[in-house]
Each structure stands twice: as C-alpha cells, then as structure tokens.
C-alpha cells in the first residue's frame, strides 16, 4: 500500500464515522509528518476517534512508512496552511421540517449545523417558510 492510499483510506474511515466533521490533511516535509486535523474539536476526545487513532498509527508502523502520523484539532500548535485534502461535513439529509429540527436539537455540533443550514437551505428545508427557518435557527442558537 502506498502512503497516498493509506491517507485516503484513513480520511474516508474518519469521515464515515464522523460525517459532520471537517477533515484536513497536509504533509509537511520540514517535520516529515502527515497531519490530519479534525473539527470540531470535541470529536478529538470521542472514543471512536481514539480507537481509530490507535488503529491508524499501528497500521502506519506496520506498513513501515517514513515519518510520523499526527492528529490535530483547533487547539494544536501546528497549523495547516495548505491542506492538500479537505473533507467537508456531509449535508444533513431529512425529509421533513420536523426531522430537521430533531437533528438540530440532537446535534452537539452547533456551529457546524448552523453553517450547514445556511449553505444547504434549499435542500434541507424545502417547503419551509423563511419564518420557520428563522425560528429553527434562533431556537438552535439558543440551545447552543
């Protein structure tokens, strides 16, 4: 397996487990390190994420790749200036206005969902009035 394939599989695995996350990948030659940054940062301490971190690091070593694999979040020292791969959060899929509200209310990732609402408005809230959308956003903002 090549390092490119390994990284691709790693990102897909993470994205499948955390569809609402944003993932960024960058290799930095200066430190010979493959960085994967996950946002929002609360995901960094999820048990599933920790298990994936260990699995990927074990595999990284077994495959004898050069350098190091390092996971970052928004509080990390290293910053990714030019990520070569970015996985954006997946769009929320819901078939009714009440389902959207339920997703919003059950979501931990307030900032992300609000962003999604704004960018995905026509698909997400098809049939909802602008007033209903305002209510949903303000309700969620208050909860967040």
């Amino acid at each position, binding site marked *: 397996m090549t390092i490119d394939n390994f990284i691709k599989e790693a990102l897909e695995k993470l994205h499948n487990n955390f569809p609402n996350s944003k993932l960024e990948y960058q290799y*930095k030659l*200066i*430190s*010979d*390190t493959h*960085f994967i940054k996950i946002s929002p940062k609360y995901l960094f*301490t999820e*048990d599933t994420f*920790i*298990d994936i*971190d*260990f699995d990927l*690091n074990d595999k990284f*070593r077994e495959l004898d790749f*050069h*350098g*190091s694999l*390092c*996971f*970052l979040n928004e*509080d*990390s*020292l*290293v910053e990714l200036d030019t990520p070569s791969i970015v996985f954006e959060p997946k769009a929320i899929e819901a078939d009714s206005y009440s389902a959207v509200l339920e997703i919003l209310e059950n979501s931990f990732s307030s900032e992300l969902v609000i962003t999604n609402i704004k960018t995905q408005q026509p698909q997400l809230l098809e049939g909802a009035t602008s007033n209903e959308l305002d209510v949903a956003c303000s309700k969620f903002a208050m909860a967040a």
Partner: protein
Amino acid sequence: MSFLLEKSKQNELAVTFLKDKQVNAAIAHCGYYSCFQKLVFVLKEHFISEYEAIQTLLAQRRKGSEHDQCIDEFIRQYAKLTDKREAHHLGNKIKDLKAFRIEADYSDMEVNDRKVEQVETNMNEFHRLVKRNFKI
C-alpha cells in the same frame, strides 16, 4: 540523578527563564527536548527491551527517526499502563510539540506569545502525567 533527567529539568527551567526574558524563538526547542529527554529516560528505565529493539532496528535499517520510534513506543506502552484515552491525549501533544519545534527552529514563522503559552501547556501536561505514572 540521571544526566538525561537533569537535562530534561534544565530545559524545563529554560522555558520559564526564556519566557520571562521574552526570548520566544528558543522556547519550543527547550520545551520539546525537556519532554523528549524524559521520555527516553522512561523507556530506558522501564521498557528496556523495547528501547533496545528500537536501537537494533534503527541500526539495521540505517534510516528512520529515533524520535518517532521512541515516541510511538512510549505511547504504546503508556496506553498499556494507563488507558488509550490518556495515551491518545499525551501522544498527540508530544507529536504536535515535536513538529512545532522543527517549524519554530527552521521555518520562517513567528513564535508569538500565544504559541509560547501553548508550548508551555503541552510541556507541563507531559511532565504532570509522567510524574503521576512514573513518579519522576
């Protein structure tokens, strides 16, 4: 006291000294080495066969980074000793600090006060957890 531990302590003290003097450029360097020297000491004292295996492997390959190998082994052993959550937390902090140290030393970037605080936080967290688990 072991010379490695003594050097680790001196680098830790150097971070405080340099921060007081606002000599930011060298802080990441001292912060990282303070952790790495203690990490190597732990491997040499508590995980002797694993440490020797790293040396043998590197000698056979004649390539690879001793730092990466030691950090990975330390994290693996730490997870067995405590739990995966704490090892994940500590492992990514030390890897982040290692990579940042290189950028701070060699790349055209500013080491600002916010970064200095983060370096100190990572370093202190490392020493706190190692002290708790290895009594050093």
